[in-house]
């Protein structure tokens, strides 16, 4: 079992009222599995993704990854863990505009002990995989949305994490680019056995996954 979520509760304080976002969620993700989280706005799917990725901590419950308990760790521990185990893909790519494609992809590797030469090899491999090895010196502003998302995917996989977390990865793309990104994720999933947890509200997009999990009002209502 790669990811094991048990009885997770999470609420946010918004203004004067407290909003319960996750109300006792259990979820298992196997190694090499592709799971789509679906649900209406405010159903808690992005919050669940953030909790799995260690970007946030639950009010109660437990989250184990590779049998390691995530809840209760310090920020610094979580940060170090993220750098080795998680690859993030965001809806709006979240590339650093001041860096070019190569440097953006290299960012996670700066946290490792790899030499300059090794880093370069890894970055080139990742960019090659997403089909952008000819765009290494382009800045995000010089690339299209689809290309930016592919750079972001290269950044997510460059440190060879155990699983990828994707939050609406095609939400901001046209149909053609979205298809390219999904094909790329499919490729990573089948060829490299990466587990993927993906939030989406596009049924067409969600269908690519092995499993569909539906959330509504903070609880899982369907798991197929």
């Amino acid at each position: 079992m790669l990811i094991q979520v048990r009885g997770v509760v999470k609420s946010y304080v918004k203004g004067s009222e407290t909003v319960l976002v996750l109300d006792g969620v259990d979820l298992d993700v196997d190694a090499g599995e592709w799971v789509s989280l679906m649900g209406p706005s405010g159903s808690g799917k992005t919050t669940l993704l953030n909790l799995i990725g260690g970007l946030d901590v639950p009010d109660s419950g437990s989250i184990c990854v590779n049998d390691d308990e995530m809840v209760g760790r310090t920020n610094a521990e979580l940060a170090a863990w993220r750098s080795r185990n998680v690859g993030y893909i965001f809806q709006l790519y979240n590339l650093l505009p001041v860096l070019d494609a190569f440097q953006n992809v290299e960012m996670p590797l700066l946290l490792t002990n790899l030499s300059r030469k090794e880093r370069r090899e890894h970055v080139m491999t990742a960019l090659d995989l997403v089909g952008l090895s000819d765009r290494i010196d382009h800045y995000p502003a010089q690339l299209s949305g689809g290309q930016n998302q592919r750079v972001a995917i290269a950044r997510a996989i460059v440190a060879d994490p155990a699983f990828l977390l994707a939050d609406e990865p095609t939400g901001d793309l046209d149909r053609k680019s979205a298809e390219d990104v999904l094909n790329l994720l499919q490729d990573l999933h089948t060829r490299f056995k990466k587990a993927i947890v993906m939030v989406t509200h596009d049924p067409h997009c969600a269908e690519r996954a092995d499993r569909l999990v539906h959330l509504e009002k903070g609880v899982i209502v369907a798991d197929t």
Partner: protein
Amino acid sequence: MKQPVPWRLLFAHLRRSWFRTTLTAAGVALAIFLLVLLQTVITELQSGVKYAGRSRLITTSAVSLFVNLPEKLHQGIEGVPGVVAVTHWTWFGGVYIDDKNMFARFAVDPPTMRRVYGDLSAKKEIVLSTPEWEAFESDRRGCIVGAALARQFGFKVGDRIPLKGNIWPGDYEFTVCGVYSRGSPQIDESTMFFHWKYLDETVGRRSVVSIFVAELDPEFDAGRITNEIDALFESSENRTRTQTEAAFNQSFVSMWGNVPALLGMIGGAVLFAAFMIALNTMLLNARDRRSETGVLKALGYPDRAIFLLNVSEGIVVCTIGGAAGAFAGWFIFNHIGVDALGRFFPSFIITDETFAFAVGTSVIVGLVAGIVPAVILARIRVIDALSRFG
């Protein structure tokens, strides 16, 4: 973990927002430039005290600096055990062509002056070549001028300088025998020195001087010699007041009243303004960096790295500005020389200490200005930082 701080982002940011960086650094540079000036003025005001000879005494009339003493008293002072040499200075006043040409003119005794301040002393506070000293000593109508004064009025060796006396009535004319420079910051490079004997002959042998300067053997107790000198003249009609050179110079500093305090206050305000310019930029930067910080944290960069990255940006911007400002000050005053200011502060030299102080201050300004936004960013939660994005 090899290198947790993504330094390349620092330079990428500086390059990307080069206009803001430049304006900020320039703002800090101007402030540090002013700080260097103010600090230099304060240093100059106090240099007379700081660099005064420890084994040197100044004897004036007990009544006032403006009451003269008979020249013959020097014999008495010389006789006190521990006194190595005695020379005297006399304030001349006078007018060089026009009232507005203000510079200090003193009548002195060249041979003893050379023993106390010049190449015959260990201290060599007045730097003048041996031939120039000899020319000055042998020409009764000779004079020497400071380097700054020579620059200001274009005096060269051989030039004639006419002075009209007021305190010491008469028309005088001097020949420049040498241009001295200073070996100690307490010596003023915009003073003119000439033969006291020429003055004394012109005014009809009044045989009086303003002050005596006694150089002591450092082995002897200056306090005891001070008392012995004053005791010599205690019951005479020329009662004296002897004090160390430092105390004598201090009385001139204190005449400036609140000016040094005022300058310090202005310096504080200048620094505060620089700090606010820097803080403003750093806060604006922090605002622009929220989502980027979120991404870095999501990638696994620790809070410490975020903090260091942002603090360093403040330090780098302010230090570049500060170094530029301090260097500009150094270049303008120590290299080109500014005669407009030279009129008021003729020996306007920026010391290494002042330079280091100014640059150090700019580092601290950058550090403090960088800390607030750095803490905000380091503490920000990833989900809050990223929530700005859709």
